[in-house]
């Protein structure tokens, strides 16, 4: 199953700050195959957010080529990029980024509405996605009525609801306590076992060790790229002292 999903060749990204320009990414090459679970690590300023934005079709490389699922991204216009984000990608953010004062099911329905799925059908699919992340009993809750872990699971359901080829997670556990972190990672591992490709940006080693592969960035270059421990989050969770579900 070594079909390439993400192909990055010689990608650089320059930002102009006043007169000078800063290179956030310097000639990065990266290939991610289907079914991988890869952690992108690095200190702040290493270029991992910039790489994430480019992989997520939110930003375009200054030079270099990026093919996502066989599509040359740099040739696409704004609307086509939006469609790619909608159909091919799923986003999970650090701050959960749910739309406030909007119920869980409405949040999850949103990507489907943008894909012109009829509202009734979209709602049904959203409920299925929420059940999949274990939130079947929180459908009509608003973000401020849920814990951080639950909010992040709503965000994951929203990322999954369009059946994307790859889920991009930007510091998905940054705002979570250690137990919830492991729970979320267990969820990601479950998805990965079912064949979902995951790219997770993190600076936590605890997160990276649940992935299959770890990419280290420094100063906009790839410092290292090696397989990871891929410990089982479910097993760790079982070993953790029982706790009230957050």
């Amino acid at each position, binding site marked *: 199953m070594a079909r390439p999903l993400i192909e990055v060749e010689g990608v650089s990204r320059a930002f102009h700050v006043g007169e000078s320009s800063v290179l956030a990414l310097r000639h990065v090459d990266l290939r991610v195959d289907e079914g991988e679970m890869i952690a992108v690590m690095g200190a702040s300023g290493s270029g991992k957010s910039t790489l994430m*934005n480019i992989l*997520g079709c*939110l*930003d375009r490389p200054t030079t270099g080529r990026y093919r996502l699922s066989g599509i040359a991204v740099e040739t696409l216009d*704004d*609307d086509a990029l*939006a*469609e790619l*984000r*909608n*159909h091919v990608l799923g*986003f999970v*953010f650090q701050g959960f*980024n*749910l*739309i*406030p*004062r*909007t119920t869980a099911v409405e949040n999850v329905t*949103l*990507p489907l*509405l*943008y*894909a*012109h799925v*009829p*509202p009734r059908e979209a709602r049904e699919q959203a409920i299925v996605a929420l059940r999949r992340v274990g939130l079947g009993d929180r459908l009509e809750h608003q973000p401020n009525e849920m814990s951080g872990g639950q909010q992040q699971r709503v965000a994951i359901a*929203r990322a999954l609801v*369009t059946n994307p080829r790859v889920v991009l997670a930007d510091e998905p556990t940054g705002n979570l306590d250690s137990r919830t972190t492991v729970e979320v990672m267990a969820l990601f591992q479950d998805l990965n076992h079912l064949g979902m490709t995951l790219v997770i940006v993190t600076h936590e080693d605890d997160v990276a060790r649940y992935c299959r592969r770890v990419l280290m960035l420094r100063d906009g270059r790839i410092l290292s790229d090696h397989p990871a421990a891929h410990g089982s989050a479910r097993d760790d969770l079982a070993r953790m002292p029982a706790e009230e579900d957050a």
Partner: protein
Amino acid sequence: MKILALVRMALGSMLRNKVRAALTVLGVVIGVASVVVMIAVGLGARSDIEAKVENLGVHMIVVSAGSSTRGGVSGGAGSFNRLTVDDAVFLDEEAESITAVTPVISTMAPIVGGAGNWRAPIQGVDTCYFTIRAWEAASGRLFTDDEVRNRRKVVVLGHTVAEALWPDQDPVGQRIRLRNVQFEVVGVLDAKGQTADGSDQDDVVLSPYTTVQTRLAGRQFIGQILASAASKEAVPDALAEAKTLMRESHRLSAGEDDDFTVRDQTQMAATAQATTNTMTLLLSTIAGISLLVGGIGIMNIMLVSVSERTREIGIRRAIGAKRRDILLQFVVESVVLSGIGGLLGTGLGFVGSAVVGRITGWATEVAPATVLLAVGFSMAVGAFFGFYPARRASLLDPIEALRHE
């Protein structure tokens, strides 16, 4: 995304900021309500002025002595005076679309009586003059058919004449002298005020035309024959008929020019209409400006909303919203706001029109077309003023927007 889903979303986001939405809507409500009231007032004023024009004379037609042209030199109006009492009688008997006819015999004479003397036109008229001009006695009475038939020396004074000769007293029952002939004052007319061209309608003495013809010496002429058409709609027919009958009465052959002119009050009505139109335009402009202010309020709130929801816009863009989805979302939100304002404003406009109608006594009815216009216009205002904030939202860079706190 379907429009219905967008509208639901817009309503949802309105409910999230109830107070703010209510205040924004209020601006539109006031704007639309004032437009509705002003249009109603304008229409009310128009029908009021139409009634006043009517008051100058009921569907009045004026036959005037024509001009004569001899050898290419026009003698001007009245220079060739052939109007006679017989013409008036002929018109009265023959015309079907005309209900009342009176000759108006004019002369000028010093009026002596009461406090001193005065000079005003003396007009000899028939009793239906009062009907045609819708003129009633303020005190005393009008003269009667009997008095006309018997050439009684009675007069009815115009308000100005009465004031001039008897400043502090009711002149009814008093006597005046016109060219040394004594007349009894039987009544004083209602004040009619000035005409559009500034002449005082109340500076007049009215007497039976028979009396004026026989008892008053001096140059006399029938300057006018006044007639009343059966209805407003019958005025054009009455005009045509009067013209034909006058030619017949004067025995004019086909080739000859008219030696008279026949006019109605369209000139007057047109002037009055123009005045009301100007007023309606003025009021509507003011109302329109308040709606404009309401629109600016919407724009303001939409701009605030866009900057507050920058992050939400980023999220929506990240999960696949296109620029036009964002644009549409905010335009729909703005149109929903203004549309609700339009509906509420129309309701308030109904109430306001009723109140203004009660105060002024005008028939301020809200036409159904006004409602459609008001709601449609307010939605257009919403779309117009919502477009700029919505465009700003749609042009946000998704990465910047996501980073926004």
